[in-house]
Each structure stands twice: as structure tokens, then as C-alpha cells.
């Protein structure tokens, strides 16, 4: 036995009990309860028949209301769909209707704690007010920890942000991100590597006083180490120059930790430490036609390069688009 309904203090706004129908304006959410479970008390699988119209996520349950589970319905686009609660076999145990109405500007909503993918806590970014598009993404892990270089790894903070402009991120607190993605490289007369940024302006990356050498020294120091300059110079040189030939490995820098493009998450008009971006290894895997598997970030939001391109080309991933990060406690859909 199972049925959808309102319990405790869940808002009844837009809910018609008789027809089990929830009306939601685009860009809004509604909360619904599911009472009961399968014949042997199994947890039912709750999802929209057409997930381009709305998606469901499970909220932590209220212990005062035994047998009730709590779901959040997020309206994505105009339309009507059935939300079902099914047994793992597919048998429908309860159903309701969700009717999404109205119009709204495009915004993106990220649910970071939807599921485990391998050992990654993974989620999805949904386009609200589009055509039901979404893309896989991974934020920080749900529990933070210290990292190298004085950095910490943190959950992505829930809240409302706005996407900043699309940029090649430069973040010298990560040594290989001191150079923007795609910068041209060359060797100078002293055989040190230089990079071009901005166009026409060359800076030295390697050797004593080089931008990457300095960044790497600072990285080690912040991590509580006492780096040896000579050794760091050798390490940094190895990123750029083949020691056997004395030539550059590549004439373009493609090892920036933020991948090809990044968008800062702005809060109240101000920058935050959080970016929406890819990783260099996922970019390279994509270029080689290999599968991409997302890993948790330091708090940023990692994207799959091909999906980034798809949403960027569709005009959803761009400066000024509102971006909401939901709490990790909202799980699913399967």
C-alpha cells in the first residue's frame, strides 16, 4: 500500500487531493509525501515519467511521521507528467500528476548529492525554463578534508549564485593553473619556457623567478614543506621540456587545472572561490574519444567537457544565468 499526499507542514498550495494533482509554476518547487511502501515494506522508486518536465529528489524524512517519505518536485518546463512510485520490478504502487505551467527565464539548478558514481558523490545540473536539458556534474565531497598546498576540499555550499563570464581561469595557488589554458609556449634564448598571455606579452614560466616555479614554491610552503629551489626548478622544467631532446613537449599549455573554460559562481555580485569547470584530464580523454568519469572537486563544480559544450552552445551556460546549488541531503532520482 502506498499513496502520495501532504503530511505535517507540507504546503498544500497547488495540490488537489481528489485527483492527486500538483500544479507548479516553472522555476518553483513543490513538496510531496509518499506514505507506505511495497508489500514487504520495500522502498519504492519515485520518479517522473517525463523527467524533462519535472524531477523528484528525496529529502531527509521527518522521524515524527513514520511511514512517510518526503520528496521535492522541481518544475523544469511547461507540461504534464505522471510521477510514479514503483517496485524495483517496475510495478506501479502509487501515482500522482504534476502539472507545470507558466513561463520563466532560464536558470540552472544543481543537486550535488543525487547518487554515488564509482566512489564519486555525483549530481546533475538541470535547466529550468529550457527544454528539459540536464548534465552530469560533481561538486565537492559531502564531508571536507585538508589537501596539499594549504588547500582544503569542501562541499559546494548550497545557495543562489549567478554565473560570471566565461574565462580561461588563472589561479596561481595551483601551480599548473598559473598559466591560462591554450596559452602559446616557446623557449627563450636561455632555453627557459615562456608563455604568451595576454597576446603579444611573453612571461617566463620556468627557472628561478619563473611564474610556475614561484607558484610551485608557494604551493609547497603553504603545505608546510620546505622546498628546495633547485629541485622545484627541475620539477617545473619537466612539465614543459623533454629532458632528452631539450624541446618543448607541446607548444600550447593544456594543463590548467580548470580545463578549457570556467565560470565563477558570483554571490551578491561578488566573486567566490567556486567555479563551474572541467579538468584537464577529462578534456584530454574527451579529445581522444575516451570515457569521462567525474571526480569530486575542492568545492567547485566539475562538468563533462562534451556536456559543457552542449549546454554552452544551447545558450544556457553563460554569464548572468542564475545558478542554484541545492543541499547534499536531496538524493535521487535513480
Amino acid at each position, binding site marked *: 500500500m502506498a499513496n502520495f499526499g501532504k503530511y505535517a507542514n507540507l504546503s498544500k498550495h497547488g495540490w488537489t487531493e481528489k485527483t492527486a494533482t500538483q500544479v507548479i509554476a516553472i522555476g518553483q518547487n513543490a513538496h510531496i509525501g509518499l506514505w507506505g511502501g511495497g508489500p514487504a515494506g520495500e522502498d519504492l522508486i519515485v520518479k517522473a515519467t517525463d523527467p524533462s518536465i519535472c524531477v523528484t529528489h528525496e529529502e531527509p524524512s521527518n522521524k515524527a511521521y513514520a511511514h512517510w517519505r518526503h520528496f521535492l518536485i522541481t518544475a523544469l518546463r511547461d507540461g504534464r507528467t505522471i510521477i510514479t512510485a514503483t517496485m524495483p520490478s517496475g510495478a506501479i504502487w502509487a501515482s500522482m500528476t504534476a502539472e507545470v505551467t507558466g513561463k520563466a527565464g532560464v536558470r540552472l539548478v544543481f543537486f550535488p548529492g543525487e547518487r*554515488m558514481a*564509482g566512489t564519486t558523490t555525483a549530481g546533475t545540473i538541470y535547466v529550468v525554463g529550457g527544454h528539459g536539458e540536464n548534465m552530469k556534474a560533481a561538486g565537492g565531497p559531502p564531508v571536507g578534508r585538508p*589537501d596539499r598546498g594549504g588547500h582544503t576540499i569542501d562541499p559546494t555550499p548550497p545557495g543562489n549564485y549567478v554565473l560570471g563570464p566565461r574565462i580561461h581561469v588563472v589561479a596561481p595557488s595551483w601551480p599548473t593553473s598559473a598559466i591560462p589554458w591554450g596559452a602559446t609556449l616557446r623557449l627563450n634564448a636561455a632555453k627557459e619556457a615562456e608563455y604568451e598571455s595576454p597576446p603579444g606579452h611573453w612571461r617566463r614560466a620556468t627557472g628561478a623567478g619563473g611564474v610556475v616555479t614561484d607558484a610551485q614554491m608557494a604551493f609547497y610552503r603553504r603545505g608546510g614543506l620546505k622546498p628546495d629551489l633547485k629541485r622545484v626548478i627541475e620539477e617545473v622544467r619537466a612539465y614543459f621540456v623533454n629532458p632528452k631532446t631539450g624541446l618543448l*613537449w607541446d607548444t600550447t599549455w593544456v594543463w590548467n587545472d580548470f580545463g578549457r573554460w570556467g565560470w565563477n559562481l558570483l554571490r551578491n555580485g561578488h566573486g567566490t572561490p567556486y567555479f563551474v569547470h572541467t579538468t584537464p584530464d577529462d578534456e584530454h580523454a574527451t579529445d581522444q574519444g575516451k570515457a569521462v568519469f567525474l571526480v569530486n572537486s575542492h568545492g567547485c563544480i566539475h562538468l563533462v567537457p562534451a556536456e559543457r559544450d552542449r549546454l554552452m552552445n544551447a545558450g544556457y551556460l553563460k554569464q548572468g544565468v542564475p545558478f542554484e546549488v541545492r543541499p547534499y541531503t536531496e538524493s535521487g532520482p535513480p
Partner: protein
Amino acid sequence: MKRILCALCCFAATALAQQNTCPSLESGVEAEVLRVRVAKDDLGAFRAVGDKALSALRLCPQSARLWYLAARSAEVLESPSNGQAFAAEGGLNRIVADALSHAPSSAPAATVAARVQGSSSLARKALALDPNYQPARRALAELLAKEGAIDEALRLASAKTPSGPMHLTRAHVLLAAKRPAEAVAEARKIMTPGEPDELSPTVEMYRDKQEVLGFALLDLQKTAEARKALRAAAAAGSVAAQRYLAK
């Protein structure tokens, strides 16, 4: 006669080309190894290490170092990628088996194989190949503890100047020996992020520390503390902690 000379010339030319190419290819892989230390996504950097090592091995199958790097990358990425990272190259077990057959005298390669195959005899072989190679010593201690040979495991894991990884190994052995209080004390000596004794992503030592802490605290009936540690381990990718919490 001419044909034989031609064949010999060809063989010599190929061997010479490989002599020149292999050090260059190895340097390319070593550049990726260096990047692991400073990459924001150090787990992802293992993919570049593994890809480049496997690619270089097509020309340089005699390189024990490349076999180790390929096997270690496949081991590190097995769980995070659900076994997909090197599936096109035959996957973890195939890469490890190839590493063992091509580099039978490599203690690092044998150590990876010991862990992946759960074989204490392989770990023993790795330690015999290089008695100073600490990862082999640790692998053998942990595998012996699982087999119930606690005394030998503890003896192996006792070091004059114990490192973070060796504290972790001792904690694992003590937990297997049903001495949870000592396991907790040992695990708490581990500083994170610490210096690993083997090419590793930073998350590994933190995850394993929280996991052993969590299960040892559970044995001590300190449920709240244990759950906190297990949540941290699960968030860092511990499958055992995730399974426990799901229950």
C-alpha cells in the same frame, strides 16, 4: 646471406631507435608523475600517467618502471572509474598480469599485484626483491593480518622511524587482531595530507585513516564518533564505509 644481413640491419636499427625513444617516452610519463603532486585533481592525473605509460609500453615493453606506473594507475583508478579508466586496455587485472610477466624483478610491480590479487605470497616475493621497499612490507603485513598471522604482521609493521603509511598499516593489523583501542591510537598518529611512500592520490591515506578509525571505534562501541569517521571515509570514496552507512 644478403637477406640475413638486411634482417640484422633492420633489427639493429629498430633496437637503436627504441634505445633513443624509450628514455624520451619515459621522461614524458615522469612529467605526468611529477604533476600528480600538484594537480588539483590528482586522481585525474593518474589517468594521464596510466595512458602515457601504456602507450609508451607498446614501444618499450622492457621498462619495469613503465609497467609499475601503468599497473599503479589502473589500481588507483579502479574504484573511482568503476573499472572503466583502462577498460579499453584490458582493465586492471590484465594490466597487472602483464606487468608481472614483463617485469618479474620489479618489487613495485609485484606489490601492486599482491594488493590487487590479495596474495601474500606475491607480497613476500616483492619484499624479497627489495627488502627496503616499504610498500611491499606494508602490503605483506596487511595481507598476513587478514590471514590471521598477526604476530608476523606486527613484526613487519614495526619500524624504527614509522611513517604515516606504516602507522596506517599497523592500525589495520591491530584492528584485524581485535585490538581496536590500539588501532585507534595508531590511526590518530597519521597526519593528513601526509607524505605517501608510494605514488598515491592524497585522498587515499585520509580515506583509509578514517575507515580504520571508524571501524575500530565501532568495535569500541563509540558509535557517534565511529559514524563521523565513517561518513568522512565514505565521502572520500571508501566503499566499505559506504556499505556500512547504507545499512
